Each structure stands twice: as C-alpha cells, then as structure tokens.
C-alpha cells in the first residue's frame, strides 16, 4: 500500500473527470429537464405524465415484463446453474462457454431470429398445430409473449452466470448433508441453497431486471407499436413528436426503477437471512 494521496488522485482523476464531463453532466441536464417548468422547478410534468393513460399502460407493462423475465430467469437459472456446477470440471467449463456464447452475439441478430421462429409459419406454430395443441396457428409476434420470450433469451445467461459463481462458492457438502438429514429438495433449496447464494441472485436479478427495462431492440422488433415499453416509448416520443420533456421523464423513471429493483432485491436477501 502506497500512501501518496496526490499521486493516487493524479492517477484516478483523468478517468473521473472524463466520465463526469462527457457523461454525468449531459445526463444530469437531461434528467433535470423533466423537473423544469418555465422558470421554476416542479413535479407537474411527472404527474402530467402519469395522467396519460397510454403512459400508465406502458409503465405497468414495462414493470410487469421486467418482473416476469427476472422471476422466470431466476427459476430456470437455478436449475441450469445447479446442473452445470455438479458436472465434472471439463464439462463444466464447456457448458459455461456455451452460456457465455449467446452474450457475444449481437442482440439484433438474436432478436431477429424470433421473427422467423414465432411467426405463423414458424417452427413453434408448426409444432403446436402438429401436436394438436391448437387447430389454428397462434399469434405470437407483436404480443407481450413475444417480447417476454425475446427478453428472457437475451438476459437468461447473465442470471445463470451469476448463480454459477454463487453456487461454486457454496460449501461442497452443504446439499448432500441436508439430504442425508432427510430434507426434501424444496427444503434444501429454501433452507440451504437460497440463503447461501442470495448474493448471486441479487446480482443476477438486478442485471436481468435492468436489462429488461432498458432493452430497446427486443420490444421494438418483437413488440412494435402495439406493445410499447418505456424504452420504445422514449424513442417514439423523441423521433415522432420531438418531445424531449417526456423523454427526460421516462429516462428518470427508468433509472429510478433500476435503482429500486436493486435496493428491493438486496432488502429481500437480507430479510431472508435474518430468519
């Protein structure tokens, strides 16, 4: 450990100044615009925003889809991560590689594939009709279901990766010990795995939830104007109506939502461990 404060600051300041000037200042001005009336500061733009029914619908839809995607990815994530962690080391490495791989593919490409898969003549509908689950092909494109599927596919790897590292740090014999003592799998999960991996869940959950809130491509391509989310609404307000005030409000809402989700998940994690 070195003790020269000036030297330390000199090393760290360029990056901090850069980030502050080109990043925090413009973003800060943008966010503050939503509070500005002609010559004073006010919350009226926010109440006005929520007075509009379309905006309310979009807000709740964004929140709902974000929560659903997070919950689904947690469930699938635990099952997958546990299956991977219990593999022998070489196989485990390969599986982790396969989880990382989709993250490296452009989200545009990943979302685009769903247009083909979920279409009326796509394989999902062929399977559904072929298996006799429905007489008619179902409509997926431009529905919340399509956006949900697209977002889940986009962000599930982040949850799996967070849970893998959490599970790897768990004492190796915790689960077998609980099993020997007669706990069933649900009890093992709730009493052993969950408390020991909650940090991974918080990290993964925050990443997935924030990702779902702020994804643009997926709702734009799979939802279109019928399934507007906050991010696509923001883009539409700016490009169609040149409405920067609404854009600034939506931006603030998105940030508040991300932060609150993070806080909430942390709170949940600590509450559970106190019991």
């Amino acid at each position, binding site marked *: 450990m070195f003790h020269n404060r000036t030297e330390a600051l000199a090393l760290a300041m360029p990056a901090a100044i850069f980030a502050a000037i080109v990043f925090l200042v413009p973003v800060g001005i943008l966010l503050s615009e939503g509070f500005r009336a002609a010559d004073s500061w006010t919350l009226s733009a926010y109440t006005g925003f929520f007075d509009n029914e*379309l905006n309310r619908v*979009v807000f709740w839809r964004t929140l709902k889809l974000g929560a659903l995607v997070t919950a689904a990815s947690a469930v699938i994530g635990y099952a997958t991560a546990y299956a991977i962690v219990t593999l022998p080391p070489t196989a485990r490495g390969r599986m982790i590689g396969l989880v990382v791989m989709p993250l490296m593919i452009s989200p545009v490409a990943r979302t685009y594939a769903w247009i083909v898969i979920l279409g*009326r003549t*796509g394989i999902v509908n062929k399977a559904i009709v072929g298996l006799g689950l429905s007489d008619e092909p179902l409509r997926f*494109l*431009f529905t919340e279901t399509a956006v949900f599927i697209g977002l889940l596919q986009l962000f599930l790897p982040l949850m799996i990766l967070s849970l893998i590292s959490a599970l790897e740090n768990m004492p190796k014999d915790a689960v077998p010990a609980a099993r020997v003592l007669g706990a069933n799998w649900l009890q093992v999960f709730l009493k052993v795995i969950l408390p020991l991996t909650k940090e991974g869940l918080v990290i993964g959950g925050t990443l997935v939830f924030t990702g779902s809130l702020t994804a643009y491509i997926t709702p734009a391509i799979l939802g279109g*104007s019928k399934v*507007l989310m906050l991010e696509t609404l923001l883009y539409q307000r700016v*490009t169609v109506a040149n409405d920067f005030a609404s854009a600034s409000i939506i931006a603030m809402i998105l940030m508040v939502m991300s932060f609150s989700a993070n806080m909430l998940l942390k709170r949940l994690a600590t509450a559970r461990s106190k019991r």
Partner: protein
Amino acid sequence: MLKTLLASSVAFAALAGTANAADKKLVISVYGFAQDEFKEIVYDPFKAICDCDLVVETGNSVERLAKLEARKDDPEIDMAVMSTHDALAAARKGVTQPIDVSRLTNYDKLYDIAKDPLGDHLGVGYTFYATSIAYRADKVKIESWADLFQDELKGRVAFPNVTTNQGPPALYMLGMAMGNDAADLKAPIDEVASNKDDIVTFYERSSQVAQLMQQEEILAAPIGRFSWGPYSKMDMDMAWATPKEGETGGMNVMILTKGAKNEDLAYQFMDFWLSTDIQTKLAEALVDSPANSEVVVSDEIAENLTYGAETVKNLKLLPPDVILDNREAWLSEWNAKVGQ
C-alpha cells in the same frame, strides 16, 4: 492522447478504404427503401458526372425532419426528399429555402401538379404514389376500404401507424367507406380502435409489411405503391385493390435546406434526378413513379406504377396543410384510443 487516437482513426479509416479523395461533397437525406436501385440508377451515375462525393443519409421522414431541425443553424444536409406535408412542416420551421426553378432544366417537363405543390417553390415533386390495399387474392376479396375488417382478416391484417405517411390517408379512406370524410378522422380511428385486437400490428415502415406478408402472418395491408415491387415478385397470389371509394396516396418532393453548403451540387443533383432518362430508369425498376411527363414506359411497367396524368388526378389526396394542421390531434386521438 485523444489527438493520437484521432490521428490513428484517420489512418484507420484510410486503411478501411472509407476515405475519399474528392473534395466536393453533396449530402442528401432520402427514404431508406430501394437504396440498391437508387445507388445504381442515380447515385453512382451522378458521382461519375459531378466528380464529387455523395453522402446519403436514410431514414423515415419524421426522423430526418427532426434531425434537420436539430441542425438548423449548421445544416449537414444539402437537399432532402420527403412527403409534401413534412416538406411543408420543414418550410414552416424555416429549415428550407425556395428553389430557383430556372436552374432546373427539366422543370418544364413535370406534371403541373408536381411543379409547385407547396407554394413559393418550396418543393418540387419528383414522384407520386397511390396508396391502396395489397392482399392475397387467393384468400380474401377486397372491394372497399371497409373490407379490411372482414371476418376472414381477423388477426391477419396490418394497418399503418398514424405516425407514418400511409396512416392518415388510409384512415381517411376508411372514413369515406363509413360515409364520414371529416378531417378530424375521429370515426375511422374509433373503427380501428374497436378492431385493434384483430390487427396484427400497426406498422411503422412499409417494407416491414413485406416480411409479414411473406411469412403469411398477414393477408392484407394498406401500403404505398412505391413498396409494391417486392410483392409483385412474391411467389403468391398478390393483388392490388381498387376499392370503390378510390385509392389515396401522396406525393414526394425535393427540398433545399436553408444555408445548404453545396447549393450548386444540390441543384445539379435535383435536375439530374428529374431528367427524363433517370425518371424512366427509376420507373422501369419499379422504384418511383415518374413526375416527369415525358417518361414513357411499357404497359406492363405502367401496370405496377402510379403512372400517367389521369391516374394521378384520380388519387384522393389529403392536402399537405390539412395533414400538418391535424397531425397532433390525430396522434393524441390515436394514442388515447388505439395506442394502448
């Protein structure tokens, strides 16, 4: 450090082959469709004769208009093409300047309706298009705009969003089919709203519809004739409706930005685009219907275009000022009833 990086960026760009030696540069802003054809028919031949670089920005009218306005005091764009009402909006916002038509040698060849659609020579029409309904003739029958909401099309029809150029005219025709041609479009918007669960999507770009049609996601959609090209090539029984209420449509115009940095090149380019030769080639490639009255095309080509003075006269067009003055109201009406 930044300087070094920027310097190396220049070197990098040169390596990547993007740097161009020509020092004259024309920047144009156009619609995004059929860019391959435009490049072959318009851009490349023009570059060859002007000895200049041509930078093409693409996007839909609204996006491009927003950018023009944002860069009002220091325009990057020299000339742009857009719908008549967006051109009028641009003119009202003071981002365009009148075109000196005496500098366009091909001006006199234009159909009268294209010569000065906005007044004060703020724009010159270069193409028209009809808007009607493209549909699968083997699956449905369309004889009226109201047929869009027939039972066979429940869950199989797309409609243009009110924010697109096709949206308001299509709504207007729907209103006519309902016996209500009020410019507030309240009746047709209500009609769309009551059918919204049966509409697959409110599309924002015409070409998006082609993919949906190809995937059999939809069987019918109101589209502009300019995007008809791909449909005629589809391996499907596609038809262009001639509804009893008539077809609607629009005109696109060229505008010159105020303070354009390359005015001379812009004039040269506009004149080139309006020439009989280029307009004929664009028509033959089924890209743009000609505004130049000297263009002669075969019957087969004419069939797929909005061709000839008669056709153009019969289009039921919404005047640009009506669109512009009502747009905000339509949008809020739409958002309140259809948008959610």
